[in-house]
Each structure stands twice: as C-alpha cells, then as structure tokens.
C-alpha cells in the first residue's frame, strides 16, 4: 500500500516536472523564434544600407579592378573598357584576396588591376577592413578551421546579433542621425574639396596622414596578404597590374615620402605599376576629398587609365 502511494506521488512529480520544463522550453523556443524573425528583419535592413552591392559581382568579365574606396568613384565606367570594378570601400588586401580566390573559383580571370597606394599596407587597415562583408566570398581555406568558417561565413554574416560591425553601424546611425538634433529637418551638403581653403585642406590631410601613417612599419598581415595575391595570380596565370590613384595637390605635398611601399613590393617582383598619383594636381574640382576622386573625376580617370594602358600594354 505504501509503495503504491509512493508510486503515485512519484508519478505526480514526474508529471509536474515534465509539464513545467516543457512549458519553459516552449516559452524559450517561442522567444528565440521571435528573435530570429527580428534578426531577419534587421539583416534586410543592414543589407539595404551597409552590405548594399558588396555581395554583387558580375562573373562574366575576365578583367577586374580590386581596390579600396579609391576605386569606388570609378563606378561602372570601367565596364566600357571590359573591366569589372570589384572595389569596396575600406577593402584590405585580405578582402581582395578572398575576392580574387572567389573570382578564380567562379569566373575566367585574365587580368587583375589592384591598388598599391601608399596607405594600403598601413596597420590601420588591419582594423578598418571589410572582413565581415567579404566573408561572403570566403571559402573554407580562408579560415583556420571548419568551426571558424561556419561561424564567420554564415553565423556572423547572417546573424545581426553576432556581428559587432552590424551593431556598430546601427549604433552610429542612431547616434549620428537620430540623436544629433542639428541634422533634423534639412538636407545636408558636404563642402567639396575645391571649396575648402588651404588651411582646411591641410587640416583634413593631416588627419588622414595621422590615421594611416601613425606606425613606422607596414602591417605584416597586409604585406603577407599582398604577397599571397601575387603568388595566386602567378600560379593561375593572371596578369597583375598595380595602380596608384590620383591625389589632390595639398595632400600630395604633405604626404611627401610617407609610404608603406606596396608599389615597391610589386616592382621588386617585376610587376607592372602605373603611377597616377600626380595626375590631377591642379584639378581639385575632380576630388571629393584629399585622396578620393568624385564621380566626374572617376569617369575622366578611367579614360586616361585605360588609354595609357592601351599604349603600354595593348
């Protein structure tokens, strides 16, 4: 009799335990599903204003331009010359390496134009890059192990809650756009480079130099990535051409001998480098800032670039 009572009590306990934990897990799962839905919505938002066209590449070309923000003003003008502009703002050589490998896997690549400006081997590029976005192009070989591959390529890329860069972008948007009352209710226009007086141009140029040329030596990580890019191109029989983009006069003068020497690395490896950094020294109107062309500048530069290439490398 006693054992019967004990049995019933025990069953009652098991029932209530099962009921409670099932209820708890159901609530937790429902909540996680809700978070998943929010994540999807946030991802589409992020895709709209951060990833934008970064994951968009035309694989029908055989020549590609790989550069950071110096290459973006060239837009699709390069396509007139049968070159696809695959540049991305803040792209580092690690990002370009991923893109290059992706192109080799998925397209028929004959020639790569790559930026070898003074700053491209800067240690600053180790922090300011697109590793979160370029993981879209990455393969398992780009990561030390399978776990890191899955985490970076899929979890971090698609899960907004795991990606610090996405969070930072939303945070900056809220802080800079919403909480900054001075920006409410009006259209903002940025002063173009030519409108700035010399003192302002110098101040902005100095900021840029301090940002990129703070360390005496180039980044090892960037240098190794660039060396790997050279080797990959060599082993896949791809022509590699180094490009140095135009600079504004003030910046050009202040930069003087500051350089981490990406172009020197190319020259040492007998790779062709075209140097355009003094091309527009008297044309500030073609720049949006000290070292970035504007849309018009990009269009003009594309024609000059490919005309000169036709002359030296038909």
């Amino acid at each position, binding site marked *: 009799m006693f054992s019967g009572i004990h049995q019933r009590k025990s069953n009652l*306990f098991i029932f209530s*335990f099962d009921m*409670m*934990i099932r*209820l*708890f897990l159901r*609530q*937790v799962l429902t*909540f996680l599903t*809700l*978070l998943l839905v*929010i994540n999807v919505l946030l991802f589409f938002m992020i895709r709209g204003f951060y990833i934008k066209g970064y994951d968009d590449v035309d694989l029908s070309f055989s020549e590609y331009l790989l550069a950071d923000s110096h290459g973006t003003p060239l837009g699709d003008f390069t396509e007139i010359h049968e070159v696809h502009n695959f540049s991305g703002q803040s792209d580092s050589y690690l990002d370009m390496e991923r893109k290059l490998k992706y192109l080799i896997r998925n397209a028929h690549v004959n020639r790569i134009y790559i930026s070898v400006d003074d700053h491209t081997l800067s240690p600053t590029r180790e922090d300011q890059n697109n590793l979160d976005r370029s993981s879209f192009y990455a393969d398992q070989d780009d990561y030390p192990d399978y776990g890191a591959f899955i985490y970076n390529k899929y979890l971090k890329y698609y899960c*907004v*809650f*795991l990606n*610090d860069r996405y*969070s*930072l972008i*939303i*945070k900056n948007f*809220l*802080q800079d756009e919403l*909480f900054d009352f001075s920006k409410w209710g009006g259209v903002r226009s940025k002063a173009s480079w030519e409108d700035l007086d010399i003192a302002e141009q110098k101040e902005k140029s100095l900021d840029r130099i301090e940002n990129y040329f703070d360390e005496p030596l180039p980044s090892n990580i960037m240098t190794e990535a660039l060396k790997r890019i050279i080797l990959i191109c060599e082993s896949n029989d791809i022509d590699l051409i180094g490009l140095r983009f135009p600079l504004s006069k003030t910046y050009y003068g202040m930069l003087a001998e500051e350089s981490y020497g990406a172009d020197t690395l190319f020259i040492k490896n007998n790779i062709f480098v075209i140097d355009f950094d003094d091309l527009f020294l008297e044309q500030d109107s073609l720049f949006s800032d000290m070292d970035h062309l504007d849309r018009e500048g990009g269009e003009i530069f594309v024609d000059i670039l490919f005309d000169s290439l036709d002359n030296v490398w038909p």
Partner: protein
Amino acid sequence: MLFNSLDFALFLPIVFILYWFVFRDSLKSQNFLIVITSYFFYGWWDWRFLALIGFSTLIDFAVGVRLDKVEGRFKRKSLLILSLLVNIGFLGFFKYYNFFLDNFITAFTFFGMPIKANSLNIILPVGISFYTFQTMSYSIDVYRKRLTATRDFIAFSAFVSFFPQLVAGPIERATNLLPQFFEKRKFDYFMAKNGLRQILWGLFKKVVIADNCAEYANMIFNNSTEYQGSTLILGALFFTFQIYGDFSGYSDIAIGTARLFGFNLMQNFAFPYFSRDIAEFWRRWHISLTTWFRDYVYIPLGGSKVGTFLQIRNVFVIFIISGFWHGANWTFIAWGALNAIYFIPLLIFGKNRQNIEIVAVGKKLPCFREVLSILGTFALTVFSWIFFRAENMSHALSYVFGIFSEGLFAIPDFSVFPGAITLLIFIVAFMFVEWKGRVGEYGISEMHLISNKAYRWSIYVFIILIIDVFGNTSEEIEFIYFQF
C-alpha cells in the same frame, strides 16, 4: 569563460539540458555534473589553477570531517588554523607576496638599510579571493558547530566550485548553499524564468552600462593630468557606474544562472546608490562580502558590543581588511579607510541603523530630505571610488587635486568623448528602471507582474536590442572583480 561570451552562451544550454534531462534522476550525478562542468568552466581560463581549487576543497573537506570527530578545544583550534593557514596562505602568496616584498624593500631603504630581493612574476588565479573565503566560512562554521560537516565529497566540491558564483561571488555561506546540494532538485518554471530575466538584466548592466563607462573612465583616469576638474568628476562618475554595472551585473548573471539549476544564491546588491547614508550603502553593496566580514571578523572582535574606542577600532579593522581584500595596493587600503571615516560619525551618534528599509517605500518619489541624503551619500561614494580606481596613491591624490582646479565649474568638452552623451542618457534610464524596481531583488524583477505578455516580451526584446546595438562587445571585457 566569461558570462558575456559566445562560449558561455553555448556552455549554459548544454549544461542545462544535461542537468535536467540526462542526470535528473540522481542527486549525486547532478552534483557530479556540477563539479565537472564547474572545473571545465574554470579551466577555460587556466587549467593549471584547477589544482589549487582541488587542494583547497580537499583540505577544507578533511578539516571539516576531523572537526566533527575531534572534541578537544586545542585540537579543534589547530584544525581550524590549518584550514585558515592553507587558504590565507594561498591568498597571501598569489595576491600579496609582491606587495609585502616591495613595501619591505621600501621601508628598509627608507631607514638606510637597502636590501635586494626579487619580486616574483606571479599570476593571480581568477576568483581566488572568492572561493577561499567561501571555504573558510565552511571551516569556521563547522568549528563553531553551526554546521555539521558533510561526508559527501562530491557535494562539497560542488559547493566550492559551483560555476555561476565561482570566480566573482556572491561569496556563499555553507549554511545557505551547502544544504541545497542535498535537496532533490525540482525544476521550477517561475524560478527559471526569473533566472533568465535576471541574467538579461545583468548582461545589460555589464555590456551596456559598465563596459561603455569603462571606455571613458579609462580614458579620463589614464590621462587625468590633461583634463580639467569637471571632466575628472565625469571620469569618477563613469567609474562609479562602471563598477556598479560590472559587479552587480556579474552577480545578477550568477544568481540568475544558479536559478536555472534550482539554486538560490544570496542577494549581493540591493540598489546601493539609493542609500541615504554610508551605513546603508554598506548594507546594500557587495552584501556577501560585507556580511562575511561582519560575521567572521567584526563580531569576533566585539562588534558594537564594546566601548566606543574599540568600536571605532573594529570599524577601521573591518574596512581596511575589506579594502585590502580587493587588492594589494595602498589605494584599496585608503579606500577602505575613507569609508571607515565616513562610517564612524554614524556609529558614534548611533545613526548607523536608521535607514534599514529601501528609500521611499510605497511612494513614487523620495522627499526632499531623502533626495539630499541620497545625493550626499552618492557624492561621498564617488569620491572614494577615485582611490579605488587610481593606479597608486600619488595618482589618486593628483586626481583629487585636479578636480579642484580652475575648470571645476566648466562644462566638460564632450566632443572628445564621442558617444558619451548617449551613454549618460542610458545611465539615467538605467537608474530610472532601478528606482522603479527598487523594492524587488533587481531592476526588472517585478516585470512578471505585467500581465500583458506581448508588452512584457517587447520590453525583453528591446533590452536585447539595446545590448546588441549599444553594448560594448567589440572585445569581451573581463569583469573587474575577477582581479580580486
């Protein structure tokens, strides 16, 4: 393994499932799982120091068993001294060896007898001050016959190493926590939900408040000579909220995690920044340590049952030891002494127990007098945190003198602290939530009273989004109290 890491986010559900589904039928196996997972949790930092916890556990277990058997006063005292020597010895070596050595060298040099001795490169094992105090409380309670020694080594190991509170407390008493390892665990839906809610609030405090404050506090404290008085006050304020968010956030996550496994840990913080005097502050700040010192140091010294002079001595002893517990630096001792100085007038005038209940119970807002008391106490606390945060005494003093510079009443230049205004808005919002929830155990503990589930869940989602977007997760910042 940090609570605010992806590793822990994976670890916790795995242990939860193993605990409630695989090991649920046997208490012993659940305790065994706790020991294994706790050692894994601790070993994630540095597996070498597991031996230290293991040894400490073994000694205190054996001492406890012997204390139960032995009757003679001398023998019992010897056993207790053995336990204290081992635990304090570990602490002394790992935490204070270099401090004492450096000070001996300085003292001998000062008296014209320079001596040479090499300091050792000692790594401080994470959480050593917490688990040694916990095991010491066990030995003392068994010695005082307030507790019967356990014969279950697994349960005792689980008590010492219980992962939610292993590295930064709350410093549990054996009388509260140990018996829970002998009770059949029942999964309690409401307790688990409460646990998750507390974890969420703890994460908010840590990642949004503490880690963001840390950035500005570090910037200002590390370059204090470059800033004017008002900015230095701002730095001290940021540190004030950093340390509260960091430590109470950890405690919330620890208590919440323990709840998921059916354990009740003691409350460690009870809205200390709403205190009306320093005595109340110390009843609400790091409660587990304060009560530890009260029970095992202050009362044995005579507590408040002795003459005024001895009472003052006891207060100084307890506050200075408490300061020294935090770290081997004169700044902590100064911080402790400063709090003793704040406390003594209340003791002398018999006002140290006038504010027991939380402020303005049953009212929406405090009265004017209460506001003044809260602000006064808060100002004293902010001032003392300067000593706690400073690198050394000369840094602390130069910081204090820097405050009273000509820029004391100037508006701080916020342009050099991008995002600081947003953070201040968050701090105000955070304190508002804490104020609303002050009668509960933690800021949002009364949230379950909101009957509209959609509304309740919207608040949880909102907090998660705030943690994600505004949380400082660029790198996982360790909890401050790990170093203690």
